[in-house]
């Protein structure tokens, strides 16, 4: 594949997409996992499909529509949760399905045979365009800058938002901004693994990093590295075996995760056995 890499633009684009995706999913994924926002991220991702359909219907780039709907869902879910007092899992379920339904309707309203919009649902890293890459670069840049610039604020907010708000840290702003960053991350990841499998890249790298490191910064770095490994290895496997790229990446990421969990629980059992046999 290496020779093909140097020859074909689409493979180079795919590799860039992998690296950009790893950065955002590593950093934001750790925050999503710690703040227990996994389901919310799924809701935001599936609402994005409404934007994909709208973009197709009105003639603008579907990925921009996805971005608008993602941010809308993020702010909407955040606002309703805060003010309306409705349980978050209910809101998420409603947005999740509504987005998908809107996407389907918008697409069906367009006369003629729709082009392959499945790449938004299942990802198609090999068809990443220059525009997609530019969008991904901008989102990754914004994400990294915002996290690094306010890192200590983020840490205080993630650990104990009640105490943070008492000492005057702008927790409401951070809460909404985190959701916007999640929306941006999802848009970056849509191209790589698709709306339906976005959760894998948000959770698996962060979970793996959680097993091997402690400390927020090292977890984020670890998650970025794991994300990159999963994406590149998955890309390689899909190229070599001629299988769907998004699915390959996800299968690799999830299997590694399960294996790591199993290995950890086996080690824990061994430790317990040794400890109890010593006490006898």
């Amino acid at each position: 594949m290496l020779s093909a890499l140097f020859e074909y633009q689409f493979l180079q684009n795919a590799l860039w997409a992998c690296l950009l995706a790893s950065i955002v999913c590593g950093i934001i994924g750790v925050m999503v996992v710690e703040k227990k926002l996994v389901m919310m991220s799924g809701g935001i991702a599936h609402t994005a499909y409404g934007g994909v359909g709208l973009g197709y219907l009105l003639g603008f780039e579907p990925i921009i529509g996805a971005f608008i709907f993602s941010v809308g869902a993020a702010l909407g879910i955040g606002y309703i949760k805060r003010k309306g007092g409705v349980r978050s899992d209910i809101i998420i379920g409603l947005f999740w399905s509504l987005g998908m339904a809107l996407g389907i309707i918008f697409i069906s309203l367009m006369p003629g045979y729709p082009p392959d919009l499945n790449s938004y649902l299942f990802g198609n890293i090999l068809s990443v365009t220059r525009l997609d890459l530019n969008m991904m670069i901008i989102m990754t840049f914004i994400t990294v800058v915002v996290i690094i610039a306010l890192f200590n604020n983020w840490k205080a907010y993630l650990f104990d938002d009640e105490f943070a708000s008492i000492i005057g840290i702008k927790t409401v702003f951070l809460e909404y901004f985190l959701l916007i960053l999640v929306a941006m991350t999802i848009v970056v990841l849509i191209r790589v693994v698709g709306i339906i499998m976005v959760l894998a890249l948000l959770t698996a790298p962060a979970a793996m990093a959680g097993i091997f490191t402690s400390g927020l910064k090292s977890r984020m770095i670890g998650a970025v590295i794991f994300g990159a490994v999963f994406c590149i290895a998955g890309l390689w496997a899909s190229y070599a075996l001629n299988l769907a790229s998004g699915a390959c990446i996800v299968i690799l990421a999830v299997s590694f995760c399960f294996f790591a969990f199993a290995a950890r629980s086996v080690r824990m059992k061994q430790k317990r056995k040794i400890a109890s046999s010593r006490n006898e």
Partner: protein
Amino acid sequence: MGKAVQIDHLSVYYGDTPAIKDVCLEVAQGEFLGIIGPNGGGKSTLLKAILGLIPANTGTIRIFSDGPLGYVPQFATMDKRFPISALEVVLTARQKPGLSLFKGYSKEDRTMALMQMEKVGIQNLAKRQIAGLSGGEFQRLLIARALALEPKILLLDEPTASVDAGSRTQIYNLLEELNKDMTIILVSHDLLAVSSKVQKLACMNGELVYHGEPELSEGVVNKLYGCPVELIAHGVPHRVLKDHEGGMHKC
């Protein structure tokens, strides 16, 4: 002696249900106030209202303090698996209000944080991740975090719930020490310890049932808990209950 906190006709509602009704309470500067009462009686709500975490429906709360309020929540409500070290937890209190762009912690911040950890006796645990702390150590860590704010008023919500007996004594002795420099408001279920250390006692059961010296009469306890309660009266080293005649009452 000046006032620290003045609460006038405070009511806090959760939806339509009143959690606190018409509470009037004055806390003097340098006082050690204990707040007791049954679960759901509004003790934590009162604390959170003073801190500004919950809005008051009616009434006013005035804080007469030129410094920040130190809040020590129950450690059980925190996520122990969060990737953060003990020192970093105390350091979070050193952050300025608003958004701090590209701000790290200064050497002064670290020295100050370690000083507070020394005060509560956990300076050796500075580098440890919080997942590796016991309940008592974690609770003391939260006290250190509040102290790092250099508060004039310290508010603690059940700091000895689920804490081992040794740490409990340590914490109460620590609070007695700290009371020399700041006003302390303590919510607790630990009737005995509360009455032995505090100067004033407030009893909350939706309303302020009692506020005065830490000496409970049977009538107050009945009103507090809603039905006659059988209490063990310890004579040593002090009495909680007034001497009374007669036997136990049944509900």
